[in-house]
Every structure is written in structure tokens, then in C-alpha cells.
């Protein structure tokens, strides 16, 4: 400490250099932030303008007159093909699709990770490798077999069908997250609990789950973002009435006739993106913490 104080006191030129560097850094970061925020700015301002204003005004200008008409239309009046109910029904489709899919895949991932990390059995590593492999299979590859599968199970075109698809596809990732988290927990904990008389589920429920908050948050954010933003599965395995919000957004943007209602499109896009944004804002700090958890022993 004293060393640093002495050197800074004795070399003002180096001090100036450091301050200049700091400023340069912040200026650069500020510019990047502006660059990334630009599209959002355009989306928000455009969604608050009237069509008349969009046609006559500049793309990056603030709205002269703020109107929420486009938001109302996007939510409950915009046409997706022949129906004109807005995003609302599809938004709820996405909600009742995403919540169970996220919860089920997280729960299964936690159990899988717990077994693979703490109850080593013959072939555990092989099974884990295969699950990891599952993470890297492109969506397109599984479309046809999955469609057949859903058909056989009788849940094609339904929301439970979509939940099933997302759970299956998510297990690889959720297992990876939980396994890597649980592998840092000493095995003696399980041994101690066994001697105390606790069984497989008791140990999971009473000892491992309470330890898992950071990784649960990470998994939930990851899964929610994946499932909410998914388009390919949504468009492939749904039918009229069960489509998720991403598919509906696409239909709104693509099926307008006559004048293109940019303000409605923008509002709809923001509405569709809002839940994932919200999840990040609420749980974001846990996300970083959870990703780095285990690297430093607490």
C-alpha cells in the first residue's frame, strides 16, 4: 500500500497517463453502448409515432406527438393472417408453454446433474458425454424425427407437444449446468448424509437443492431465453391457435397488406422481447454469479 502511494506521489506524469487511459476507456465503452442501444432507440421511438409521422419524419427523430395506438394495435388488434386479435393470445401461448418447459427441464437437469456428479455409476461419463453431444445437434436435424414422434404420441400441434420438444432439447444444457456445479461439491457431503440415514431424494432435496440457487437462476434464464425466443420449433410443431409469440410476430410483420405499419411492427417486436428482458434485469446479477460459482471456493 505505502509503496503505491509513494510512487504515485513521485511520478505525476504517470498519474496523468492513467487518468487519460481511464477516460479513453470510458469514452470507448460509452460509444459502444450507444451503438448497441441505437436499434432499441429507433424501435421505441418508432413505436410511439403515428404512421403519418413515420412517413414524413426522420428515422432517428423523437416522436413529435407520442401515441400508444400502435402498442394497442400490436397487443390486441393486429392481423396475423386472417385473424386480427393482435399478439395477446399468442403471448399467453408462449407463457403457458415456456413456464412448464423451463421448470421441467430445470428440474430434470438438476436431478441428472446430481446423479452424474455425486452418484457415480458405471457409464456415467459416457451418458454425460452423450448428453453434451445433444447440446450441439442443430435444430433442423431433429425436425422430421420429432414431428413423427409427436404424431405417434398424439400431441402434434399442441402446446404440451411443444413443451415436450423444448424439455427434450433443453435437458442437455441443464444437465451440463447442474453437473458442473455439483461436481465442485465434496462427495463427503453425500457420505455424511447417507450415514445420517438420508436416502437419494432426501439428500437431493434437503442438501443439494438449497445449495443450488445460483445455478438454478442461470439455468432458468438460459432456458427461458431459449424457449421464449424459439421460432423454428414454434413454427414447425404448432398449428393455428397454439402458435407462440415469435411465430405470431412473424405473421404480423409479414401479413400486412397495403401500407406497412412500422409502428405496430416495432411495438409488437418489443412486446415479444419484453419477458426475456425482464428476466435478465431481475435475475441478471445472479446469472454472472452463478456462471462463476465454483471457480472460487466459498
Amino acid at each position, binding site marked *: 500500500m505505502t509503496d503505491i502511494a509513494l510512487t504515485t506521489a513521485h511520478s505525476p506524469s504517470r498519474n496523468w497517463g492513467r487518468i487519460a487511459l481511464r477516460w479513453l476507456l470510458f469514452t470507448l465503452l460509452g460509444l459502444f453502448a450507444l451503438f448497441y442501444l441505437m436499434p432499441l432507440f429507433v424501435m421505441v421511438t418508432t413505436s410511439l409515432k403515428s404512421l403519418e409521422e413515420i412517413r414524413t419524419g426522420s428515422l432517428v427523430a423523437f416522436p413529435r406527438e407520442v401515441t400508444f395506438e400502435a402498442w394497442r394495435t400490436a397487443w390486441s388488434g393486429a392481423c396475423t393472417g386472417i385473424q386480427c386479435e393482435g399478439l395477446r393470445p399468442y403471448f399467453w401461448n408462449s407463457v403457458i408453454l415456456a413456464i412448464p418447459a423451463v421448470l421441467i427441464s430445470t428440474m430434470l437437469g438438476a436431478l441428472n446433474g446430481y446423479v452424474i456428479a455425486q452418484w457415480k455409476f458405471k457409464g456415467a461419463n459416457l451418458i454425460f458425454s452423450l448428453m453434451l453431444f445433444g447440446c450441439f445437434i442443430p435444430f433442423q436435424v431433429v425436425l422430421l424425427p420429432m414431428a413423427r414422434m409427436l404424431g405417434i404420441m398424439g400431441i402434434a400441434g399442441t402446446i404440451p407437444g411443444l413443451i415436450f420438444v423444448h424439455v427434450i432439447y433443453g435437458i442437455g444444457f441443464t444437465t451440463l449446468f447442474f453437473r458442473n456445479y455439483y461436481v465442485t461439491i*465434496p462427495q*463427503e457431503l453425500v*457420505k455424511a448424509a*447417507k*450415514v*445420517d*440415514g*438420508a436416502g437419494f431424494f432426501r439428500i437431493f432435496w434437503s442438501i443439494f437443492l438449497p445449495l443450488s440457487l445460483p445455478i438454478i437462476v442461470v439455468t432458468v434464464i438460459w432456458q427461458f431465453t431459449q424457449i421464449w425466443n424459439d421460432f423454428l420449433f414454434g413454427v414447425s410443431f404448432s398449428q393455428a391457435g397454439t402458435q407462440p409469440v415469435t411465430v405470431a410476430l412473424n405473421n404480423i410483420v409479414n401479413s400486412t397488406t397495403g401500407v406497412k405499419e412500422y409502428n405496430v411492427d416495432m411495438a409488437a417486436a418489443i412486446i415479444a422481447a419484453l419477458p426475456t428482458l425482464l428476466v435478465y434485469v431481475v435475475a441478471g446479477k445472479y446469472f454472472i454469479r452463478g456462471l462463476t460459482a465454483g471457480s472460487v471456493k466459498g
Partner: protein
Amino acid sequence: MAPILDIKNLYKNYGSVEILKDINVAIEPGDFLVLVGPSGCGKSTLLNCIAGLEPITSGSIGIGGRDMTEVSPKDRDIAMVFQSYALYPTMSVAKNITFGMKVRGVDAATQEKKLNEVAQQLQIEPLLQRRPGQLSGGQRQRVAMGRALVRDPKLFLFDEPLSNLDAKLRVEMRTEIKKLHQNLNATMVYVTHDQIEAMTLATKIVVLKGGIVQQIGSPAEIYNKPANLFVADFMGSPAMNLIPARAKANGTGTKIEIERAGAAPLVLTDTHAKGLPEDVILGLRPEDIAEAGFRAGEDVQEADCLIDMVEPAGADTYVVSQLGGKQVTARLHAETSARTGETLPLAFDLSKVSYFAPESGERLN
């Protein structure tokens, strides 16, 4: 009395690797059994087998007169303290201690009563509401012991419980464990690689090496009559002097000759030893080699030795001399007149001597 722990012909393999070979150990109620050996000797594996946390390949384990070989850990009536303490991190100290009772469906009033008893016994009452993360190493150790004590089991198992503590605390906790053993009159099995811990705590020691039992006996037996070179070398600090020597039978006993570089061989006469082969390894603990005049007895023999090194250690002074090509340590009193490079008459107490066969390492007398 029936043995409380009875291990018979226990084998344990991992794949084709034999970890434990033909282990036979039995202890009586109230015994303090210490499993000691260098790392990798299988002592922790053996403890895990006793606990039922590791399946065994063949043989049997009986606890309290019942065959427990196939019984799951929770039904073996044991409690275990782990090296890392293995406290449940999200539970308070009180919950850690009562977890086992809760799992077993013990009623709340009994839990409370037992918790208070144990907390008082270990002086951890002020800590009961804290989390393990907020405790020091010594406190965590106590909580881990509390979790075992509250169970009141037939058998306590300790897996190197003191190895994570600093030297001072380790000695304190060692004394406490010993006190606990005496007060509870409990039966304990304790794993350590520290031979001093083994000597101070045990009523019975099992020395293991490479998964094979080297010797079973009381601390005194292990210390005074080690069964082979490994045990002789492993137990005791500083280690036993193991000196190559030649034995020649003469009328009254055996003449022992020890080669010395640049001097006449050292000749000792052991009047008790009989039937030794010509080549032997003579084992004598440092405290059985004293300064001449400070040790009396009919088996004490004196000889001049060149002192290579003098190491004052406070209470004692260790001197090193070259005998039979080995550094031989003698433990002298603190005010010795020994000087490096000078000769000093040393007294060898042959009543304490051990002889080993150089090839097999087995004890000969």
C-alpha cells in the same frame, strides 16, 4: 465379550486392482482402534467399507454381533466424522446436528434435548444458530463431532478428522477426542497417517501398507516389538535406527558386529538372542542409545562412537553417528558434552533391541 466390530477375510478390489487384502480385525466394546499407514495404504477405504459407503469384494463385517456386510450405512448403527467435516452448508449448526434424527423421525422434544446435551458437552451452545461457513476450523470440527455424538451409535468412525487443523489445535482436539473416548466409554475406529496420533489415542493399532495388515497390537507392542522393518520405520519419531549387522553365536549368547568406516567394528554381545542368521538388521530406538553412564542395566553395553552431528532439540539433544553405513540417531539428555567430530562413549540398551531379516524384513526375536 463378543467383539463389537469383527472384520473377517475382507478383500476390496477396484477393477483388477486389489486395494485391501485379507483384512482380519476384531475389537471389543470400549476399544479405540487406530488404522494407520502411509497415504494410499487403503486405511480410508477400509473405514468406508466399515461404514458401508464402499461395497466389499469378499469377506464379512460384523458390528455389534450382527453381520452388516450387506446392510446400508444408515442401518449399521454407526456415526462418522469426515476429514472435510462435510457439514451441510445451508443448514444451521443445530440443524446439522439434528438432521440425522429428523431423517429418522425422532420427535422434536427428544431432538431438542439431545441437541442441548451434545452442545453443552462440546461447548458449542453459542454457535447453534450459525451456518458452517461462519465457523472456524476448530469449531467446524466440534460440530462434526456433535453430529456423530448425538447419534449415540455402537461405533464411531473418524476419517483423519484432525488433518485440516493447524498444529496447535490438532494437539488440543486430540486430547479432547481422547477425553471423549474415556468419558463415553465409546468404541471408536480412527484413521490417520500421523503415527503420533495413533500412539496417543489408540488402545489398539492396525498398521497398513499396500492394503495388507502389517501388524495389529497395542501401542506398546507396536512400538517395542514391531513385526517388520516397515512398522519399525513407520512408527516413532525420530524413526527407529535400523543398522545392518552380523550375528555370530558364541557360548553365552550372540556376538553382534557392526561395520564402521575408518574404525574397528563395533562389537556388542546380546546374551538373550539365539538362532539368528548371520546377516541381520538391528533395530534400536534413539532413546535406547544413551550417553554412557546415564543408562544402567545388565543388557546395557558401552562403546565409543564418532559423533557426526549434534542436534539440540530443547528437552533432548540428538546426536548422529555413522554405524553400519547408516546414520544412527541417539537421544541424549540436553546437557550432553557431545561435540561434533569427537568420540563419545554411547550406551546401547540391548534389552530393547529388535532383529529383522534383511531380505523379508520380518522380525526375528
